[in-house]
């Protein structure tokens, strides 16, 4: 999976879980800028990332995944390590 593909799939996850159009999923998207990104949807985001990419996120990564940009960084690193 190349970097563009990862970004596209992650965008689709955020767009579906948070109910946003794909072009609204920008690196700075965060719980502060998006009211639907609450603690429950944080869990659904983590679950979906794990299901769709077949990876396990570390607890620390789950806690600091508070913007789309950071999420992309975490997923890319996790895929590279796998």
């Amino acid at each position, binding site marked *: 999976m190349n970097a563009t593909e990862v970004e596209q799939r992650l965008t*689709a*996850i955020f767009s*579906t*879980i948070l*109910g946003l159009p794909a072009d609204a999923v920008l690196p700075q998207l965060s719980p502060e800028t998006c009211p639907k990104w609450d603690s*429950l949807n944080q*869990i*659904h985001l983590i*679950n*979906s990332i*794990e*299901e*769709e990419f077949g990876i396990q996120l570390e*607890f620390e990564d789950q806690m600091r995944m508070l913007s789309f940009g950071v999420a992309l960084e975490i997923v890319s690193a996790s895929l590279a390590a796998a």
Partner: protein
Amino acid sequence: MAEQDLSALILDPARQTAARAKLRDTVDAAPRTLTYKHWLAQLPAAQNRTALAVLSSLTTETLEPFLQLEGYLSGWRPQTTYVQYSSWQNALLVGQELERSEQAPAAVVVLLHDTELLGPACTGATAAEALAHLESLIGAFRQRAATPLFMGLVQPPLHAAGLSLGEALGKGRAWQRAEFARGVVQLCERFADMHLLPLGLSDQGQGSTEWFDAKGFLSTQSVLAHKALPAVARCIARYVACLLRPRRKVLVLDMDNTLWGGVVGEDGVHGLAVGQDYPGAAFVDFQRTALALRDSGVLLAAASKNNEADVMAVFAQRPEMLLKPEHFSALRVNWQDKASNIASMAEQLGLGLDSFVFADDSPIECALVREALPQVEVVELPKDIARYSEQLLRTQAFDVLKLTEEDRQRAGSYAAEAGRQQLRAEVTDLASFLAGCNLRLSIQAVTAQSLDRVHQLMGKTNQFNFTLARPSKEDLLAELQRAAGGGLYSATLSDRFGDYGLIGFVQLQAEARHLHISNLALSCRALGRGVEDALLAFARELAQAHGCTQLRVASVRGPRNQQVLAYLDGAGFERLADNERGVLFAMSLGDAVLPWPAHVNVEKQTALT
């Protein structure tokens, strides 16, 4: 089915049965968070929502998107209140958490974490103590509300639940939790409208604990792994749905490649696969499933494009067939389209098309029925014949929380009724029909055993019901114990075609020189058979034996029981008093009045109880 076609189907209010079946398949092909979230966004706006409360010491809110979609797939839309952590016990005890929501819940689900109630291993509660505590919580809830309760057990793996000291030390943790689980089952039997949810969330000791999220449990009390959420939500949605819609009553089966492998018209009776060896065994298994549904009250029917003689030869010459012609309440073996055949069977059985499920291996036949009769639920059998039973039972159409005696007898009573209809068609007048039925009526004092059925009858009978009183079971029991100079009697009817069961009730009260029929009700299934005449003759005979000279009947006017007044006029009663509420009838007794009907063979009580 392409995604946009399914999206369009979901939005078509007339095609919801098909939409749910297709969406079910789509979701099951990839039961993941994203799938659920994706389709949830496409559902039509809910017309109305059913309030549900989910109580647990654990985090359960994560179920929400799954429960929403599974609710839709089960034909209802939930409005869920999650009461989590320590408040769940309070919600049962005092209920503030439940009353805070706008709508009182239609059902309460408790996801019971056994370790919470059992406490620490060694120093915690015994199973008996934990159960006593649970019973007090449910008892308190039941005093306030009759809301159906669903109990699901969550039993994390032993390493998370404390030590298992083993049986050697006696009553170790494994023993305690098995005992606790058994106790919960018993509580479900003791309390009214309390049901067990088979969530499968237990440590089986042999591995299958994929549902358990150790990290989630320790960090957020979120014990359910995300993989487990769809199945848990599905179980809840499916069980609650039983409260909200009637069960479908008829299963229409195809025959070729459904009940047997092969096509009888081409392969011949002896070329068909049905029997002990695979692939024949798969068809026998499917027949066993159909028979089990029949035993639970589902009527079986068949629609097959074949020559009738060929099909009858299969029944006659293949003893491996578990299904016999007499198991079918309706049969259409002809070359007409199946939709017309299903419609004509609906007419024959006197049931609506929304009571029907149709199962066929042919995608074309399935599509035709789906198109022509959108009310019918269609089960398309898979290519893999070993999965036929599984596919049939995936439909929720036959789900039921509790089987009644009526369910168990339904198929038999439809068969008896078909026999009666045939006799009625063969003879020209009613008298010969009745004489040909060999009716047997038994009139006996009501007992503790027959009280339940009498209570049901009084609650359901609207047409031939003298007072329309709806006594509670406790009222009837009190009457039974009080009855002096009178009594409560039940009537049970059978004929040569089968049993009608307990179909009549009469209450008598002697007052000086007259005997009062204080109440009388007769099930509409038994009307017009002379049973009503027999019940009056019974009252007349007891009145005379008791030295009464007059029989009195009070009849209340109701929306659907007008025939009672006409019947009593016709029987020769005089109207003593008549107003808008009802009529008081009387008749002086002599030998000639109210005779026993000649065609009913009566066995009876001979004195007032």
